[in-house]
């Protein structure tokens, strides 16, 4: 006949064995021997029915508490041992995480594309749209309609590429030709930029190329003034180069009047500070509006143009223009 003391002893032994078990298998043995069908506790629990009312209450309660405590201890111990075993198993899965990861090959967008996209974003955010035009262009769109009359030195065959066997057909020397096409096709207000390749008959050297890239802008609206041009250019300079110090000086272009040039304070990687010629601009010449059939008294506007190649070179410290056109991966991949 088990007493409460027996149950207490039995519980203590079971808890001690549980604590001592140091593997899931040992713990399973402990569980079977202390709570299994043939365990002492099981016998006690099975005998409760045959006890008197008073004893049944005391012994039954004690035995059930003992069973609950032992099972709880077993479960806790099992969780601990499982966790320990998992940790041991994972530790054996050690690898060298500093090895190169699975390859995700990344190429490089050309520096010119990067600079162009960046400038496009600045103007898109201002509400400009992007227009495009032919590169094999007529003298009319490239020169005449831009107030550059016949006989002008820029039109000479030493400056401009002419297409063989096609009188009046040239490779465009400026993206301004797109301005003319846009004005011809549309009515104001207009806010348009046109990036693209242009061609001039320069020999290839570190700072010259017969093909280079421009981004031209045109705004035509009521009430546009030099102040709006100044504000626009200042905004672009600060967005693009982080430069807040700028300077506007006179310049000359046949298709703008007044014509200006924007200089921005530029500090190169050696710390040298200088005024960098960022772009040429001006108020659209009334003659250009006349060619487009716009009323020059009602509409005013401004235009600006910048050399993408030169901006890329200055901003990124590229010493030789030819590098942009060589397709050398040692160059291209530096800007990925």
């Amino acid at each position, binding site marked *: 006949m088990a007493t409460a003391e027996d149950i207490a002893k039995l519980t203590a032994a079971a808890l001690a064995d549980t604590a001592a078990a140091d593997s899931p298998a040992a713990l399973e043995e402990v569980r079977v021997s202390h709570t299994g069908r043939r365990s002492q506790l099981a016998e006690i629990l099975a005998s409760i029915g045959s006890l008197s009312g008073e004893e049944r209450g005391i012994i039954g309660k004690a035995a059930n508490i003992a069973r609950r405590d032992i099972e709880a201890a077993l479960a806790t111990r099992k969780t601990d041992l499982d966790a320990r075993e998992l940790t041991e198993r994972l530790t054996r899965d050690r690898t060298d995480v500093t090895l190169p990861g*699975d390859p995700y*090959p*990344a*190429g490089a*967008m050309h520096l010119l*594309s990067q600079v162009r996209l960046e400038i496009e974003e600045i103007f898109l955010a*201002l*509400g*400009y*749209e*992007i227009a495009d035009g*032919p*590169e*094999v*262009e*007529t003298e009319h769109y490239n020169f005449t309609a831009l107030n550059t009359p016949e*006989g002008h*030195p820029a039109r*000479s*065959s*030493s400056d401009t*590429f*002419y*297409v*063989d*066997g096609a*009188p009046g*057909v040239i*490779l465009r020397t400026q993206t301004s030709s797109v301005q003319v096409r846009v004005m011809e096709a549309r009515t104001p*207000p207009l*806010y348009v930029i046109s990036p693209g390749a242009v061609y001039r008959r320069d020999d*290839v050297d570190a700072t010259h190329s*017969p*093909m280079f890239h421009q981004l031209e802008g045109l705004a035509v*609206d009521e009430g546009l*003034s*030099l*102040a*709006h041009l*100044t504000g626009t250019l*200042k905004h672009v300079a600060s967005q693009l180069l982080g430069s807040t110090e700028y300077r*506007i*000086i*006179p310049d*000359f272009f046949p298709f703008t*009047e*007044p*014509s*200006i*040039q924007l200089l921005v304070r530029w500090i190169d990687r050696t710390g040298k500070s200088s005024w960098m010629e960022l772009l040429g601009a001006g*108020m659209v*010449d009334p003659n250009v509006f006349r060619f487009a059939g716009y009323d020059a008294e009602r509409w*005013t506007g401004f235009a600006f143009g910048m050399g993408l190649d030169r901006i890329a070179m200055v901003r990124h410290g590229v010493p030789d223009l030819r590098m942009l*056109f060589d*397709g*050398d*991966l*040692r160059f*291209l991949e530096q800007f*990925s």
Partner: protein
Amino acid sequence: MKLPISWLREYVAPAMDDAQLAERITDAGPAVEAVHHLRMPTDDQNLERFRIGRIVSAEQHPNADRLRVCQVDLGEAELRQIVCGAANARAGITVAVALPGAVLPGRDPLGEVALRGVESRGMILSESELELAAESQGILELPDDITPGTAVSELLPISETVFELELTSNRPDLMGIYGIAREVHAITTAPLGALDVSEPTATGAGNVVDYLSVEVVAADLCPRYMARVLTDVTVGPSPVWLRSRLEAAGMRAINNVVDITNYVMLLTGQPLHAFDLDRMAGPSIIVRRAHDGEPITTLDGQLRSMDTDVLAICDAEHPCVIAGIMGAQDVEVSATTTRIALEAASFEGPSVLHSALRLGLRSESSARFEKGLPYELPPVALTIASRLLVELCGGALVPGTLDVATPAPTPEPISLRHVRANAIIGLDISPDESAEILRRLGCDVVEGDIAHSVRVPALRRRDVTREIDLIEEVARIHGYGRVPAELPRMVGHGTRTPAQRRTERLRSFITDHGYSEIVSYRFVPEGDVDRLCLAADDPRRNLVRLANPISEEMSVMRRSMLPGLLRAAAQNQRHQRTHGRLYEFGRTYAPASDGRAEEREFLAALEFGAPTDGHWRAPLATVDVHGAVGLAHALCATVGVRTTLEPNHAPYLHPVRQGRLMHRDVVVGWIGEMHPVVMRNFDVSGPSAVVVLDLAALGGAAPHTVTQFDDILNVPVSTRDLSLVVGDDIVAGQLVATARRVGGDLVRDIGVFDRYVGDKIGDGRVSLAIRMTIADPTRTLTDDEITEVVTRVRTALADDHGAELRA
């Protein structure tokens, strides 16, 4: 344009230093590109140590044959002993002396020294030591009327600052010092001194008509021709002040007559020409067009051939000058010249430019004439030059001036509306101020409440013709820095077009998949068509050709994207980069019927060479057509276009490893491996894979509708595989196309997932495993329905392609 500041300050002297002046000029006028310092350094009052001296005695040095010991009066309490090695060092001459402590360019400060045992307390200077001339003989001898002790800098420009001005083509008025002085006056408001246009006394015998006649035959090219005659001219070197000024302005001193014509040109902007009257064939000047092939040997010794577009100034027999450009050698002023004819003329700018380009001969003179000089300028230049020739060459000016002119009408005054000016500038500039600015620029202004009435000076007449030109003048002189910065209130769209978005999407995608972008020249060698193995009658041999290419290598516009990529590949392989992935966006150009070009936008990608950069747990990828196929389909898919492949036969691609990328019946691109011969032609080695996408065609194929939800989330989706064996003349695409066609809408997806060739199925046979995904978004399909679809597909594949189920 080189601007010696001492010369400028003779006419306008703003109260600011040279650096400030350079800034002010740049801000409102021509850009000052560079500031050069010539001759003696100015720091630390260095110029104070250069003094005029008079040699009182010059004795032979006791210990050196070639040295003299001079006692020099420098206006000091006692004479100064200076040892001098010049042969012309002698008593009585007036000289320039550097005192101890003086710094000459690139040298240490002068010390008090003993030369061969004799003390020397200074240095008597030569012209070259003062850098007034490139070379000189002996010490500089100066006029005797100068007081000893005077600072040399008061007499000679021994220190000079030169501004390098970048002139724009619209401002020929700034090609003269006086024009720049006017500009500086306008910018700074410092008073402008007058040009000295006083006439010298004409002391020559007779009248100019006794010596010379002028006939202008080609009046269309020569609106004005003026000439004077001087006799008794002594040709020799110019005085040092004149030579040093020319040198500072970037011109070489030649002789006094030529130097004076150049000096007056630099001052006024009007070129002049002097002939040796006695070397001309007869006393007449004829201004006419040259004959075709008419020869002239110009001053530079070159024999040149003119044509009828070239204007020539001729004597009775020969051309003496290519008008406005350069004179002939045989009438050049020389040491023996005593009688000269002096020309000042107006020539048509475009004609001078055309001739200069045609003859490949530009000069200081042509650079001025070609921009168009006004009719009013020749008399001014002629007067100043005559005076200098009398003063400096001892010439006797013959009374009278020949002047053959076709006067141009004086332009009407221009109206400048105040409201309009301020609307363009975006700033209120008062009518008083704008009038003041225009007057400083030399304009006559009649002020008005609404508008000014403005006449511009002759030198600006070509450049300033309209109200907007006056507005520019007012704006720039007032100061662009004073214009406020405002952003317009915008009403634009601010979006890319769908085509632009697709292009940038493709660019991002291909970049993110390991390809690097190149930009190559769009003009290419004509030989590319051969390198691409195009057949003799291939229409792609029809090219847009340049009439004036830089070189054969850049003579035609490209009709294919491939040569640019292949050349870049070769360039990379030349420096051991054997494998790479490149792409380019750009256009090709085909001749159009109107003489222009049909320009088409492409994306082209090339993988070249076998990969070498291994990965520790991935095998090296194989570069071949399958990579191109995968890339092409993925690129198309990224802009929403589903594509299939059809056979293609481009001569520059591998004959059986290429394909045409189709969306329905539209060709959107090509894929393949390069033909090995083409690879060799471009010096590229190893395997290759190319993708070319026609962006316009791709754009046409791109979906324009919004994708609608397809509810396959709530129905079972079944997959069924068919393992088939076909003859090896059957390609996977055919099976897929047939299966797609007969499978109907229930076959939602279909693809080949395995391929086997080998012993198990026998020669000439290939096993292809096809997986079909079958579902109906509206309901659950029964097994019978699914089996029916599979059977239909299997039967069609058997009937059309002889496909058998693999055992």
